[in-house]
């Protein structure tokens, strides 16, 4: 993920600089040689860019970014800040089960947001659950974008039969909603691994299922850009001096497609998180022993009628906020990077 963010910064960077600030490039050439000054000018260009301006001019987007950073930060730091360890079965006591939040009658200040049916602290479980949800989301987006990027580049650059086959597969897959594909891959993987327990197997299955159901969009976009780029002079020149097709694809054409890919990836992240939560809610995702947000909601849903609303409400709220914030960021990024809307 870090790689693609950095790559995107360089994608936006040069264009912004050359377009907006001609003085900057002369300043840069005069101070050529020292890396530090180049870096500073890059920072200055970023601070001066349209991207930052459009970011700060929408309060909603800033709020969404803050919420995302807060949730992601809390999830990453979960082992440090969580009051309890939800994976440590020894520390659980059934006597503490179904405790309401601390401010309700019968609440325990030790369990701020109450406990679930196993006596697990809801707050800690949410922190660790968000961690799992985010990890699966990031990894599956990474898988989907890597797969879509490679296949799209290959189809667009080589063309011919390869192109037809890859795009046909994409068309067939696009006939179905992604959630159905994910469910199917998940179901088949479960059926195959029925009698074996693999360490971390559930995690990999989910990443595989979600990643494989979202690659089509990347492949189509990347192919489209590649079709245009491959006929340009710089590619022809590279071919003439004998550079191999792999190197041309990944070193020469790839930087030109990273922008749209980043936008799709951001929007897909929210979708991937929701898909993981949905699969877990349907009972084919992460098991209740290592819950994600979806699993927590599934478990809590069973106790909705017995009045234990906190088991669903807090994980549900976290998921809703996370999905909404990432969605808003993705929408904004799409509009901000779309030159047609400027």
């Amino acid at each position, binding site marked *: 993920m870090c790689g693609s963010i950095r790559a995107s910064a360089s994608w936006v960077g040069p264009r912004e600089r050359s377009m907006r600030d001609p003085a900057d490039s002369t300043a840069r050439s005069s101070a050529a040689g020292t890396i530090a000054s180049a870096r500073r000018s890059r920072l200055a260009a970023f601070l001066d860019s349209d991207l930052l301006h459009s970011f700060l001019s929408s309060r909603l987007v800033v709020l969404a970014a803050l919420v995302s950073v807060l949730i992601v930060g809390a999830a990453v730091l979960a082992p440090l800040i969580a009051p309890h360890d939800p994976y440590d079965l020894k520390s659980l006591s059934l006597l503490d089960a179904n405790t309401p939040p601390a401010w309700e009658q019968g609440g325990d200040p030790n369990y701020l947001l109450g406990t679930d049916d196993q006596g697990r602290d809801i707050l800690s479980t949410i922190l660790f659950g968000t961690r799992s949800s985010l990890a699966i989301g990031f990894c599956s987006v990474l898988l989907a974008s890597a797969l879509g990027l490679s296949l799209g580049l290959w189809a667009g650059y080589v063309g011919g039969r390869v192109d037809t086959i890859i795009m046909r597969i994409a*068309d067939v897959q696009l006939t179905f909603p992604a959630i159905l594909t994910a469910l199917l891959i998940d179901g088949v993987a479960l059926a195959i691994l029925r009698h074996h327990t693999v360490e971390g197997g559930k995690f990999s299955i989910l990443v595989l299922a979600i990643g494989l159901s979202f690659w089509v969009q990347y492949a189509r976009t990347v192919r489209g850009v590649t079709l245009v780029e491959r006929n340009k002079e710089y590619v022809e020149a590279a071919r003439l001096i004998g550079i191999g097709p792999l190197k041309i694809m990944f070193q020469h054409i790839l930087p030109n497609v990273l922008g749209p890919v980043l936008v799709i990836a951001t929007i897909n992240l*929210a979708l991937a998180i929701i898909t993981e939560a949905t699969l877990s809610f349907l009972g084919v995702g992460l098991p209740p022993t290592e819950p994600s947000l979806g699993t927590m909601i599934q478990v809590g849903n069973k106790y909705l009628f017995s009045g234990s609303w906190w088991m669903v409400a807090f994980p549900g709220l976290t998921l*809703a906020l996370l999905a909404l914030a990432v969605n808003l960021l993705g929408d904004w990024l799409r509009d901000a990077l779309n030159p047609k809307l400027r």
Partner: protein
Amino acid sequence: MLAFAIRRLFEAAFVMVTVALIAFVVFRFVGDPINQIVGQDATIEDRLKLREELGLNDPIPVQFARFLVNAARFDFGISYQMKQPVTAIIAERFPATLELALAAALFAVALGIPMGVYTGIHRDRWLSKIFLTVSLIGVSLPTFLIGILLIYIFSVWLGVLPSFGRGEVVKIGFWRTGLLTASGLKALIMPAITLGLFQMTLVTRLVRSEMLEVLRTDYIKFARARGLPERAINFGHALKNTLVPVITVIGLQLGAVIAFAIITETVFQWPGMGLMFIQAVQNADIPVMAAYLLLVAFLFVFINFVVDLVYVRVDPRIRILGRPT
């Protein structure tokens, strides 16, 4: 038109055969079908005999051909879990899902179009902003959360609507309908809203952006200049021209509605095909999974095909563009 239809038909057939191949591979190679059918204590001779009887020793292409022929006759074998013919299970479940999907689509259109028109005409009114905020939330929230929220409000808190099942059903031929009883209709409300909310927001946003586009065109300005009443302009001239893309999207979304019914049916324990599929996935019931996959693929391909034809019929521009040069 005919050439277009035939080309589309070939594409649809290609999709169906691909999906059938996937379903066959899963069906044949994930787990041993024999082990799933006979018990632990069956002898090796019994197993070999059954293997021969089921034709599992034939060459793979022959088996695939047989699978295709059987599928075309709606014969998908016996469910591993329920020990009944898959076709019988699906026939029992199909009406529930179709009624739910159609109710959801109706909800989406009946609310989405007026909301879209309103927000398109009155861009800056506060009611428009509320509609758009609601639609943003509808797009962002996972379906199952919306369902749980509705259950909490209307079943747990207010206690006015049932939280699971279809209510009383009336049997007409093989079709069990919940549309003819009061309890059946009551049970339909929340699942239909949950399932249709995403499509409703989609329709709202689509109609809104189309309206904004159309209202800027010259013929609308001209209609205004002629002194036509606002009402006639908005509905007679503008809305009519936004409906072509709306029809397409609704048609294409009908397939998505049937797929997303899996989630809604799980939340509300609605006894339809989606719930059946989820139970099949949990129990590794491969014949049911394969049958569901093929059926849904068929529905999708069929809907796509019809929408394509309708689109060409309605919009003459495509007929000209689509003509091979």
